[in-house]
């Protein structure tokens, strides 16, 4: 397991090591899994009940598949910790938050003030995602 630098949850972090998606299905008691960019997040949907931590790895910040993986899990009702790990940078934090990530373990530590600014800058959003924020169209029309 990797330490989160930023965490937006009140529960205790899970101590279990995250295992690969391939191994996860067979290991019937595992509660933590790590998704690589090429994995299909939907393979995890039958096991959401026992999952407490999903790490989504970003080997390079330019590979955006992890954003879809995160949303798919949240849309399916996954409520456990969703952690972005790897090449996670300040300027991607906000989009990741919107896709459902609630903890961040960047391989290079982020400047706390820059991270705070990035996460609080946007008062409103144009899209509805599973993060629960009301989209601008929702505010316009109630």
């Amino acid at each position, binding site marked *: 397991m990797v330490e989160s630098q930023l965490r937006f949850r009140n529960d205790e972090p899970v101590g279990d090591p995250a295992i690969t998606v391939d191994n996860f299905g067979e290991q019937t008691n595992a509660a933590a899994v790590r998704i690589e*960019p090429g994995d299909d997040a939907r393979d995890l949907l039958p096991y959401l009940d026992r999952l407490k931590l999903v790490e989504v790895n970003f080997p390079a*910040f*330019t*590979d*955006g*598949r992890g*954003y*879809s993986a995160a*949303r798919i899990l949240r*849309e399916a009702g996954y409520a456990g910790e969703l952690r972005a790990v790897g090449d996670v*940078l300040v*300027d*991607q934090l*906000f*989009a*990741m938050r*919107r*896709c459902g990530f609630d903890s961040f373990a960047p391989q290079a530590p982020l*400047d706390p003030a*820059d991270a705070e*600014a*990035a996460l609080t*800058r*946007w*008062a*409103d*959003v*144009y*899209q*509805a*995602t*599973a993060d629960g924020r009301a*989209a*601008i*169209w929702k*505010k*316009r*029309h109630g």
Partner: protein
Amino acid sequence: MYKYDSYDQAMVDTRVAEFRDQTRRRIAGHLTEDQFKPLRLMNGLYLQLHAYMLRVAIPYGTLNSAQMRVLGDIADKYDRGYGHFTTRQNIQYNWIKLDEAPDILADLASVEMHAIQTSGNCIRNISSDQYAGAAADEIVDPRPYAELLRQWSSFHPEFVTLPRKFKIAVIASDTDRAAMRLHDIGIQIVRNMAGELGCAFYVGGGMGRTPMIAPLIRDFVPLDQLITYSEACLRVYNRYGRRDNKYKARIKILVHEIGKEEYSRQVEAEFAHLLTQGIEPPIAELERIVPFFADPAYDLTAPDAIDRSDPLFALWYDRNCHAHKQPGYSIVTISLKPVGGIPGDAPADQIRLMADLARDFSFDELRVTHAQNIVLPHVRKADLYDVWQQLDAAGLGTANLDGIGDIIACPGLDYCSLANARSIPLAQKISERFAAPEKQAAIGELKLKISGCINACGHHHAGHIGILGVDKKGVENYQLSLGGCEGADTSLGKITGPGFDEDGIVDAVEKSTEVYLSQRKDGERFLDTYRRIGMEPFKEAIYAKEPVNG
């Protein structure tokens, strides 16, 4: 025209503040160039051969006179006094300093403009029919749908790092003036049997090194599912588009490799799921947007007659004015292709003059066309002579719309770091070769398009005559292709054979036009003749050995 509310304004203002902060962190060294690059690209800032280039979004190509005037002022204040209108209905400035870029974005935000997502691997500025709202043949104005998509696609959190850039066009007439099927997604607003409006989705078109015409993926998506369906198309692409090879990363390759049936099956599955997620704006949001694009208050008594007594005016009228849906009005295209000029370039004074003309004669509206010209969409026919005289006095009266002088050319080796060859000087040479108005008139409609490399920003695949710059052992060389076409009968050009040097390609173009002139039947355009007689006669003429003794 659409007007921002306080939400829209706050979004662009926030973006300016964000980019100012990112630029500060880059200059302070907190961001590496690799980290900063996608951020600046998503604000339209490219690093070119000699300086930064800033590309400003002109959503669906529509703008008002105040916005146009600011574009002129930016050219004076931050650039070398001119701007360059592009094939994506945007404007670019080629000589920008990084530390001034946030100030330019702030100037733009003051008139409800921005440079958001004009480059980078994200959903780009939405393009549309340049005659939207004025054309006689459209079923509705496509721009409200484009605006809905603009808001949805701006800062979309899931699609900030797609495999590659993503371009969407929206049209609403059978005549396709936006090269819709050469986009990643082309949407045509249609009516079904019940008379309801909906969207036909074409997915997987594009130019570049593997040009493809987008296949129809779904013939009718109801209007109140437009965003959800688009999101499904994008999600399948974001998850399965190739990321191992940048030349195979566009959605056209995915659709081609798995087949359109399999792609649309995956989209349908994702769509069915997303319909349960409540991501679609209510139809009330579309209803809020539509009235912004209502018809202007036309003069219903405007006379329909044209005084053709000035032959130069009559020539310009015949070439550059298009039928308007409202009797007594015309759609005017201002050619940015004077003989010997740089296609799409306009100095600040011309930009401001066009703004004034829009204010005084066209209900404050202008359009940018993907052929790099400017449109005044609603001009009273009675005002046309006045408008033409003012344009002509400013060097904007060139009468060559859709003719051989109306060349599309990408920036090429004069600016672009990816280029193999120069496009601009070649365009200038060709337009000079065909400068004589009689020569242009005889040739008629002939769309000539030049790209400086295989990325095809000059849309050469879709040119009746297309020219592609290639690198031949370190020397600039040009390939000629014939028979490309955008629109309802979209086709891709075929290469004639071995390439040419700069003078050789100008000769080859001229020979192609000679073949056409000698072979055409009544009423045929260059393209029609080519389609009838095929490549051979052209090849023979172009590659014929000069007789040694006359």
